[in-house]
């Protein structure tokens, strides 16, 4: 190996450490018997504390429900939309989706809050799970469209023409020819939507009601008061959970 290449490899090793070490250390210390940042031996007490903390478990269930419903809706709508845009682009729609992607979260959040409060003058509803789910659909749909469109660009359009020539109608051509071809992209898009939905704090905290506290909101509230080993444990669970989800989907994609 030339010295320059070796230097570059050494640098890359350092960069990978920088990216992974903080989460690794956090995960290791989630097994620490002590409340303080001094290693006192292996213990599962913080994991047991997570399971016995009803605020954490309830908010985790809320987060899962919200992420699941929002992902389902935005994946279906976003896939249909990507297909429509692939057939023929619509600059106003594509532009609006792009704009929603680059809009700072805090702006999306407060504008949704203002919108909900304005609507509530006319409807007898309050902030809650439904407002959070709608908000999550709104911000995750653009991610789905981008991922699915990227996949559609690799699809040979003449296959659909062949299906149409052979007597399929437009829906059948979509359903039985193109959709199966883009399915890995759709799954990847769903995974991305689930991740951004489950993780969101900024928008969610603005449009959530009293009964719809999510896991990031609870983690944030604890983190603002300082470091707490219970959060180390829940963080490790999130890291491992999402890490394995991504690895699983990667395997799914490549096979």
């Amino acid at each position, binding site marked *: 190996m030339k010295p320059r290449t070796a230097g570059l490899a050494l640098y890359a090793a350092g960069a990978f450490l920088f990216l992974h070490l903080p989460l690794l250390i956090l995960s290791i210390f989630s097994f620490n018997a002590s409340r303080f940042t001094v290693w006192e031996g292996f213990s599962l007490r913080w994991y047991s504390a997570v399971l016995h903390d009803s605020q954490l478990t309830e908010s985790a269930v809320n987060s899962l429900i919200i992420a699941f419903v929002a992902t389902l809706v935005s994946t279906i709508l976003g896939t249909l939309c990507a297909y429509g845009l692939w057939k023929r682009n619509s600059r106003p729609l594509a532009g609006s989706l792009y704009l929603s992607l680059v809009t*700072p979260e805090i702006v999306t959040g407060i504008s949704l809050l203002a919108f909900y409060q304005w609507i509530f003058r006319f409807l007898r509803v309050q902030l809650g799970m439904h407002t959070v789910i709608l908000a999550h659909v*709104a911000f995750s749909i653009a991610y789905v469209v981008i991922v699915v469109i990227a996949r559609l660009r690799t699809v040979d359009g003449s296959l659909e023409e062949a299906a149409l020539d052979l007597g399929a109608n437009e829906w059948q051509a979509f359903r039985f020819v193109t959709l199966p071809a883009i399915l890995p992209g759709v799954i990847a898009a769903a995974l991305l939507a689930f991740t951004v939905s489950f993780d969101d704090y900024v928008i969610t905290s603005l449009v959530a009601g009293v009964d719809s506290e999510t896991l990031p909101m609870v983690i944030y509230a604890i983190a603002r008061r300082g470091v707490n080993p219970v959060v180390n444990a829940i963080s490790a669970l999130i890291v491992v959970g999402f890490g394995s989800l991504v690895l699983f989907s990667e395997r799914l994609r490549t096979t």
Partner: protein
Amino acid sequence: MNRLRAWFLAPTWTVVVVLFLAPLAIILGYSFLTRGVYGGITSPWTAESYGRLVDPIYLAILWRSFWIAGASTALCLILGFPLALFISRAGPRKNFYLGLVMLPFWTSFLVRTYAWMFLLRDTGLLNTALQKLGWIHAPLPLLYNDGAVILGLVYGYLPFTVLPLYATLERLDRTLLEAAADLGAKPWATLARVTIPLSAPGIRAGAILVFIPCLGAYLTPDLLGGGKSVMIGNLIQNQFTTARDWPFGAAVSLALMAIVMLLLFAIARGEGESLL
């Protein structure tokens, strides 16, 4: 085809109009109204909130946001470039390394920010370790300052520079590098005068992808800056909660949107089609 396409686009159009464009329009309306006595909004229509944007206090926050976002972007590019170069030359292991870069991105941003609180605070791992080693006697103030915010942003958005840089370096015509070497250029000269200029599209894309979210960052300055490091995002949040000055918060939001869009138009021009 057109009927099916219309049916396919209609649901997303509805979501975009009702849950994105209409809320933005309401914010636009609010920004021209007057703050109510108990918060909220009231008539008359006025552009006063926009006038307050040039108040030195708020210009300082704007300047600070630009400075922090700019420093974070520069660091992301400097740190990301060699990594992208390494991955683009890694042969069959490329995808593995790219996966390593992206993996933290797939775990929660909040958790990644919290991890730095765990490491940097007064009784955090770094200060505890340094004190045990006897190198320092009092904890260093590592957390709750601009440096911690920049570190958190760089950590959070580094993958966003590595990917576009990798994409351009991957496509780079290797024969040009050989030509430079044949003509007597030293490796560093080749890097500075061939590789870096040719990866300009990747550098631009990476810069936009990092600078925009950093400029509007809310979570990182809030948790790692500890209220001392106020950026535009925190100012907006504050106007809608504690200060209860919705018209001004709306005006700041739109100013931020305007900056973001100007940047996109200025930098992405010549890039051809947008990402979509």
